[in-house]
């Protein structure tokens, strides 16, 4: 069978090309985000990105013409499995891969695809996403940032919020109201521009976890050449909706880059110990953990089956909201259980013994899971209307 050949070749290639340092567990600081400002943590990290990018395996599903690997669904699964087998780290992670890429593949011109996609694949340009605005929140279609048509370019003025790593990104893909006379949903365009453009500034937002992964981003008469629009004028909402679906799948899928998926059962046992019957010496916590474990097994099988479904060429559509909802609510429970198991040790902030309070920080961070990328409430409303066809 061809797929077996692919597997053995992949295994051999990974064996030969994945540096030993790239086969160890990865902390949040070890993620390779790429981009003009990125500083590699080690030569191995740089080398791993380069060899994978050369094979197109930073984006294995994308066509080869755009810097991708051109792999089939089954081949992608094999690649994932073989990488997991040797604990190979992902060579590159980025919003370009997760979001802009899919949007360009679907809506971009051939020229745009050939220009932007390979830059993403090679980790040369780091992208951020300019969607939410202060005062809009979940109501994306109500956005106010305007792009005034001045002939050869749009002049963009306004403010975005929750722009992930805007202070570290090179370019932004951004929703801008370019057709002021159109209705809410049809007046928005999808623009791309350089964060080094004149008139762009960013300000990090401090979160309750102490971290600042998000920014407020300000645009003051930023000039955006007209060929940097994706799709047609006024098509921005359509593209954004398509992209939100991708984002939801990604957040729901909850890969290790987003959620610290520690072994809570083992953590609890080492922190709390067992009683005379060999059970965790905290019966109520144990019961809560039991319910969580069953739900985790359940969600994992669902995710797995959904992956197979999508690799067979099906679209999830509105049902991506289902994964987003289930996955993020589950992760909130995971992180709550983790700090409960850690007890007073995990209350210490920046402690030496508790990995600088990482569990508490992950717990606080997790509260945003059911807000970012569409709140749980928005997901449930989508499902009730688009899937269950309940009346508006």
């Amino acid at each position, binding site marked *: 069978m061809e797929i077996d050949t692919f597997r053995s070749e992949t295994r051999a290639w990974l064996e030969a090309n994945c540096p030993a340092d790239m086969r160890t567990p990865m902390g949040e600081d070890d993620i390779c985000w790429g981009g003009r400002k990125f500083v590699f943590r080690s030569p191995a990290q740089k080398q791993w990105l380069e060899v994978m990018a050369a094979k197109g395996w930073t984006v294995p599903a994308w066509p080869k013409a755009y810097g991708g690997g051109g792999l089939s669904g089954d081949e992608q699964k094999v690649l994932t499995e073989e990488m997991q087998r040797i604990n190979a780290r992902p060579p590159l992670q980025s919003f370009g891969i997760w979001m802009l890429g899919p949007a360009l593949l679907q809506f971009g011109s051939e020229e745009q695809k050939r220009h932007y996609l390979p830059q993403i694949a090679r980790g040369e340009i780091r992208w951020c996403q300019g969607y939410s605005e202060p005062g809009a929140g979940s109501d994306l279609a109500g956005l106010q940032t305007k792009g005034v048509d001045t002939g050869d370019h749009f002049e963009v003025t306004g403010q975005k919020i929750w722009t992930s790593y805007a202070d570290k990104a090179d370019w932004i893909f951004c929703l801008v109201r370019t057709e002021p006379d159109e209705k809410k949903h049809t007046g928005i365009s999808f623009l791309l521009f350089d964060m080094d453009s004149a008139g762009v500034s960013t300000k990090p937002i401090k979160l309750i976890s102490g971290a600042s992964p998000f920014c407020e981003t300000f645009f003051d008469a930023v000039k955006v050449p007209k060929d940097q629009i994706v799709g047609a004028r006024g098509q921005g909402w359509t593209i954004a909706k398509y992209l939100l679906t991708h984002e939801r799948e990604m957040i729901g899928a909850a890969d290790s880059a987003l959620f610290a998926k520690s072994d809570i059962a083992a953590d609890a046992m080492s922190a709390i110990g067992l009683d005379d019957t060999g059970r965790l010496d905290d019966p109520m916590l144990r019961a809560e953990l039991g319910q969580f*474990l069953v739900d985790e097994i359940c969600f994992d*099988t669902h995710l797995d089956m959904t992956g197979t479904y999508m690799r067979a060429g099906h679209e999830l559509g509105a049902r991506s909201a289902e994964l987003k909802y289930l996955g993020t609510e589950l992760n909130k429970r995971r992180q709550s259980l983790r700090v409960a198991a850690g007890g007073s040790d995990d209350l210490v902030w920046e402690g030496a013994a508790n990995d600088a309070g990482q569990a508490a920080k992950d717990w606080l961070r997790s509260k945003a899971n059911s807000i970012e990328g569409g709140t749980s409430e928005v997901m449930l409303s989508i*499902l009730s209307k688009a899937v269950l066809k309940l009346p508006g």
Partner: protein
Amino acid sequence: MRMELLSEDQQLIADSAAGFLRDGHGIAAFRALREAGEDANSAILGELAEMGWMGIVLPEALGGVGLGYRAAGLIVEELGRHLTVSPFVSSAILAGTALASAGGDMAQNWAPRIATGDAVVALAMDEAVKHRPERIATTVSGASGALTLTGRKTFVVDGGIADRLIVTAKRGDDLCLVLCDPQAAGVSRTPQVMLDHRNAATVIFEDVAIAEADILAQGATAEDVLAKTLAAGRAIAAAEQLGVAKAAAEQTYDYLRTRKQFGVLIGQFQSLQHRTADLYCELAQVSSLIASALNALDEGSAEVETLTRAAKAKMARVGRQATEEGVQMHGGIGMTDEMDLGLFMKRDRALTEFLGDAGYHTEWILRQRGI
């Protein structure tokens, strides 16, 4: 709802099951049986056998069609949806799996009769009010040639109509599976009607004479056979409960789309929308879990125990959510016997208890994780 890719064969079975049950074996038929005080529905057995369903998991060598557990799951989900009364789970799945796994003369004798519907065989394992199949007070004792079976079994589903019982017992420290004729001297059974209008019996064995040949399996073999049997039964029971829950949920979705209150369709109320969507998500993910458990049985995967138990545990919670939300969202009318929701709620309750509830299986998973 289903995220799973079904094979053509599987899709065919699912469709034909839905069609067969809709036409004449639906909830109206269940109500008619109940009115008639008839809890065996013996008429259906021949039809199920004819379609090959009673031999669905048996290999051809034992008179079956060998289509496996995933296919059986598709059938039983429809049985659940239509509240169809039949000995499918007890005889075709539990006894079928036990006989096929044990092999030998007994399997050769009885499995084909299960497949043809000529015999119903039931499993007698519970001894307390909660399912704890590992705790067995029933014994096989005496010297070879003068063996006797003594004990008391409860909640023997279809025990009142079975031609043979597979009884779990201890012979010294060994587990035994004994095939016992309920007509034999020393056996007394008390059939009971359950709240879901199914038949279950309490069976007492008092010095019942048995032969060595009646022992289907013993020791480690018996442990394996019982584990396989229970795993299969649990995944299948979960699939049946899924059918019940889906039917309850679908009636509720329909009600929300059509019922007016305070001048608007009640499906316009956001709090009901969100709760319904949550239920939908839970049903979707438990569907995947149950399908995975059944696939694991067919593949003989190492994950069988974990997945079948997780499926049974999770389905108990989702089934309760589906039926409780159904009744609540229907309001008073949902409490009337005229509506189907109460029937789903009662069936759901019985299926939760059958072969172990959420707590029992969650406990196992905790133990397996070493805590």
